[in-house]
Structure formats: C-alpha cells, structure tokens
C-alpha cells in the first residue's frame, strides 16, 4: 500500500527511518529494536519479499564489513568493537530503508520529488544519467562475461574467477570512459551548454 502514498510522504518516511536508524545509540537495545521493527513493518506493508532484501544485503555486507573491521583493529578494547557493531547495524538498517524507497517509488518520481525539494540540478543530472547507463554498462559486462566463459572450457578455480573479474572491471572502466566521451559529444551536438534544461523544465509537466 506504500506504493500509492504521495511522493513526498514516501521520501520523508525513508529519511525519517534512516535518521532514526543512525541517531539511536546502539547501547539502547530496545530503541534499536523498535526502529528495526518499523523498517521491517514498512517492507511488509509494501509487500517487498524478505528474501529479496536478504539477497541484496548479502552483496552489501562484505563491503560494510570491510569498512567496519578497521575500527576494532585500530581502537583498543571494547570501544572498537562497539563501533564495529554500530556500523554494521546502522548500515544494514539504512540500506534496507533505501531498498524500500527505490521499490515503492519509480525512479523518475524520486527525481521529480528531489527536484521539488531544490536538490541541485547537477546532482539530479548525475543521478539521471547514472540510472540510464547503469543498464547499458550491465549489458556490456554481461556480454564480456559470456564471451569469456565461451572460451573457458572448464570450471575456473576461485583464483581465476577473481582474476578475470578484475580484468573485466578494468576493461569496463575504459569502455565506460570512452562511452562517456561519446555521450558528451552527443549532448554537445544537440546544443547542450552545461545547463540541465531537460531536468529544469520538464519534470513538472510531462505527458
């Protein structure tokens, strides 16, 4: 049912949940529990399957873990570990909330709402372009991966998998830079002069 809320309500609900998750001290167990329950409830309301959230979290946790693990290593005693747990819990809750938001709000609606909140056009243009080309990049990565496995006639070892993944990411970066160049050329060709008019003028009254 969250899907039909007014756009502002959805955005503010998400911001409120993230603020709550990041402001409540981790030592206040019950409070943290309440916040977690609210976020969980929001997912249930929006009928987002828990398995879906879990799968996304599995990708997110290793990164979060790497960020957090430096703290107990650098800070002696209990304080370091407390910070470690804090980051894990807050990261998980905020990430789940962000997942909730992108699932209840179509991306262009999110952009329109942010624009009405006077978020700078440059940021909106970056978000808009990123959303557009994420899929193009993903397709490109997929093609390279298939081409690679087509010539790999056995199951790769873990080391080989990681190594080839690193190569693919490197190639993808170079291709992405080339593409960015061409996109810039295409924008210039149609009279772009650095102002994001297509965001400025069109969000309010599109067909």
């Amino acid at each position, binding site marked *: 049912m969250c899907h039909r809320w007014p756009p502002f309500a959805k955005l503010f609900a998400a911001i409120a949940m993230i603020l709550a998750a990041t402001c409540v001290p981790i030592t206040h167990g019950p409070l943290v529990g309440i916040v977690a329950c609210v976020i969980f409830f929001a997912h249930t309301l929006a009928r987002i399957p828990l398995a879906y959230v879990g799968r996304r979290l599995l990708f997110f946790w290793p990164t979060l873990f790497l960020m957090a693990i430096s703290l107990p290593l650098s800070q002696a005693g209990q304080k370091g570990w407390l910070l470690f747990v804090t980051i894990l819990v807050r990261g998980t809750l905020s990430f789940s909330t962000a997942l909730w938001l992108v699932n209840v709000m179509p991306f262009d609606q999110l952009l329109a709402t942010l624009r009405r909140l006077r978020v700078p056009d440059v940021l909106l243009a970056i978000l*808009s372009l990123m959303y*557009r080309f994420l899929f193009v990049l993903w397709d490109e990565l997929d093609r390279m991966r298939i081409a690679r496995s087509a010539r790999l006639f056995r199951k790769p070892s873990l080391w080989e998998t990681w190594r080839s993944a690193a190569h693919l990411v490197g190639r993808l970066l170079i291709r992405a830079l080339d593409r960015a160049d061409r996109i810039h050329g*295409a924008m*210039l*060709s149609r009279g772009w002069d650095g102002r994001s008019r297509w965001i400025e003028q069109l969000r309010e009254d599109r067909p």
Partner: protein
Amino acid sequence: MTDSKVTPASVAVRVERLSFRYPGGPDVLTDISFTIAPGEIIGLVGPSGAGKSTLLQHLNGLLPSKLSDTSTNVISIDGVPVSQPTISEVRRRVGFLFQDPDDQLFCPTVFEDVAFGPLNLGLTNDDARQRVCDSLASVGLAGYEPRSTLRLSLGERKRVCLAGVFACQPSVLALDEPFSSLDPRARRTLIGILKQFSGSQIIATHDLDVVVDLCHRVLLLDGGQLRAAGPTADILGNAALMERHGLEVPWRLRR
C-alpha cells in the same frame, strides 16, 4: 539522380583542404576538399579506419577538440564557418546521428530525449512539446513519448535518436553508420525516413546497396585521403577502383 546540383551560390557544406591528426599520432585526414549542395545526399564510403567518422565529427565541430577562435574557413555550413564563436549556430544546422543509439539516448524517457535539443535551442515548453510530437510522427513513432528509453528495440532506438535530431530542424544530416546491425525491416524503415528529409545528408556506411538506393554522389575515403568523388554509379560501379580500396561493387550495379 546522378547529376550534381552544385553551384557556387548555394553550398550546404564546404570543406577545403582539411587535415587532422590526434596529438602525437599519424595523420588521420589529409587534405580533404568537397562540397555538398542543398538537398544532396552523399554516401561516404571506405574501409574501416579510413577516417569516415573522424571526418563527420569535423562537420559539427566535435573535432578538433580545440576549435580555433578565428575562422580559418576550412569548413563551412550554409556559409557559416565552423569556429568557436559560431559553434552553436553550426550545431543547430548540422544534425548528427551517432552509430550507437545508446550514446545518444541519455534521458529516461523518449519525450525528454527528443525534447533535449529544442529546449537547448531556447524553445518554450509548448513549442518543444509540439516539436517532439511532430518529429516522433515523422519517424513513425507517434505516441512513444512516455516510453522508457531502456525498453526499445534497436530500430526504435535509432528512430528516436533521429527524431531527437529532427527536432532541432537541421539543414544538414551527418549520419555515422545508421544501418549497422539493423534487421531488413528496420533498415527499410530508416531508408524511407531519410528519403523524406528535405535537407542535405552525408551518410558514412558500409551498406553500399543503400548508397545506390539513396545517394546522389559518393565520396570514397581510404587512409585518410579522398580517393574518388563522383556520381554513385560511376564510383561504386568501377570494379578496379572498388577492389583497390577494399570494397566490393554492390550487387545492383554488377554486370
């Protein structure tokens, strides 16, 4: 169809002794001169790496990356020299279609993408909306405005790109490999659309059958030099010339 209508008074595109190299690299283009008359359709042919795309990118000032402030008059469009002070005027006149439509479709919806050019030209929202409507209709995609640019077939994406170019009402079209990877139907549709366009066109392509169908004249580029220029049938029908530059006489001109 083969007569060239070039008169000194009316020239849509003039290129005079154009040479270009990337910094520190070998010459990509050497001493290229030609003119295009208004309404004329030119086929730009040659093997891969001949410099076709590089030449096209000069026509609307995407190359060289630093344009001269003072017009050296190497290239002019409708009499307007391609130089830094006139660059927006030049780009308004030259519509550029990129080879990969994904490079050109950067907005989330078809409507926003086609409206991008008109809005940059300073049109009001209502005028821009009208332009979008008209140019989508002219490529046979009326009603596609709210569609996402991610969920279109390749042929449709090319046509949306072309609508975005038409929406700026250019007098010259520069098309880089417009027919590559299109299925026959999408290719036929695109040819039909290009035939409707009233301005001049320069089409870089490997699809020589389309060139026979569409183009009044042909420029043959190889190794960065203009090797031959003339009426389509004369150039593409010359087996010795075509062979020398790694091309083939198209089926329709054989025998």
